[in-house]
């Protein structure tokens, strides 16, 4: 989805603020929210990491931007557990003593892309174009590279295709690449000098230059 989480290049944000001697967690509930996610993925196997990422992307945009990182974590975890029938929204709200905002439902998605285990189609040095796609569901191809040409810098291992895994479709591994983009191809007149961006992309996101 072309969601609010796809932030790269959006203007208007303030300065990046760093906190000296920042603790790992600022509040007990942050550690708990983080731990619950680790527990649900790693021990209970209630969902996978792609589903987790997508659950956060599905938060209402105003909530996404106003929530802190661990509030996003907690919201994603709770949304998935409700969607999977492990807990109900009602019991969460009763226990919390008030509204418990959750993510919006996921779109229904059909499988696309390649078969598992195929050999990489591109090699180091190839010029590739990122397909101009706007998937309704989870995807890891950010908007700012779509339609743009880049150069294959490394052929990286096959990894599970997230557009499928995030929607409970049969998992499959697919070749990935580090693709190098020139800033001026991404940001046109707004690009800085001698700036480049590398994005790791699954093969389904790419097409050959015609």
């Amino acid at each position, binding site marked *: 989805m072309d969601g609010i*989480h*796809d*932030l*790269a*290049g959006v*203007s208007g*944000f*303030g300065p*990046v*603020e*760093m*906190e000296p*001697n*920042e603790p*790992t967690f600022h*509040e*007990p*509930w942050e*550690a*708990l929210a*983080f*731990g*619950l996610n680790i*527990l649900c993925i790693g021990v*209970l196997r209630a969902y996978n990491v792609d589903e987790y990422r997508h659950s956060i*992307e599905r938060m209402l945009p105003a909530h996404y*931007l106003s929530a*802190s*990182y661990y509030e996003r974590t*907690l919201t994603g975890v*709770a949304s998935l*557990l409700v969607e999977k029938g492990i*807990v109900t929204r009602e019991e*969460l*709200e009763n*226990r*919390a003593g*008030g*509204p*418990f905002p959750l993510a919006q439902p996921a779109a229904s998605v059909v499988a696309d892309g390649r078969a598992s285990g195929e050999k990489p189609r591109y090699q180091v040095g190839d010029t590739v174009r990122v397909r101009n796609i706007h998937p309704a569901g989870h995807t*890891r191809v*950010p908007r*700012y590279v779509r339609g743009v040409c880049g150069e294959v810098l490394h052929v*990286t*291992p096959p*990894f599970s295709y*997230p557009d499928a895994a995030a929607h409970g479709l049969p998992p499959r591994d697919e070749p*990935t690449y*580090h693709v*190098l983009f020139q*800033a001026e191809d991404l940001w046109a007149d*707004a690009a*800085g000098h*001698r*700036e*480049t961006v*590398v*994005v*790791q*992309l699954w093969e389904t996101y790419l097409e050959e230059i015609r």
Partner: protein
Amino acid sequence: MSHQRHAKQPASIAKRTSALRDALNEKGLLPEGQLDTVLDATLAQFEETMNWRNGAKVVARAWTDPEYRARLLADGTAACAELGFEGPQGEYIVALEDEPELHHVIVCTQCSCTAWPVLGLPPDWYKSPEYRARVAREPRKVLHQMGLDVPETIEIRVWDTTAESRFIVLPLRPPATEGWSEEQLASIVTREAMIGVAMVTLEASAEK
């Protein structure tokens, strides 16, 4: 926006988090008391063993051992595992070596992925919309505001963590550290330097 007009305030985030834990506990998905045990163990791991000081050791080793450096650049995952640093979010670690004319910076624009075994959980600023929105588009300006001036003669290469590669920057070793021990060197390497928003300097110290 009529729903916003009448929207009730959510329960506090602390209450919402406890509510989720308690609801899970009640389901009996794990033997009694084990949910808290697992939680405690997980958090202890991140507080104590899986943090960016591991990465500092990797960098110091690479600075002092040319063969290790070569192994790190060829296969970051294996080289980190040599020092005992492996685990979740470290299944495919890629070390990015800074050069006099090339400066690497790491971001995850869509969420906040990081190489946990060598960088630990990322700091708030790395997870902020500000950093995620801005650094891929205006890296030199962002680094300047964060206190690092990279001259325009030097290429800035931003690595967006969109798939399974987890990056660690191998920063330039500061001059005037000849003869330093690995431990001494590790003590001046900061998390910020391994993300690429700071250089390693002699002033940096353990309190960072």
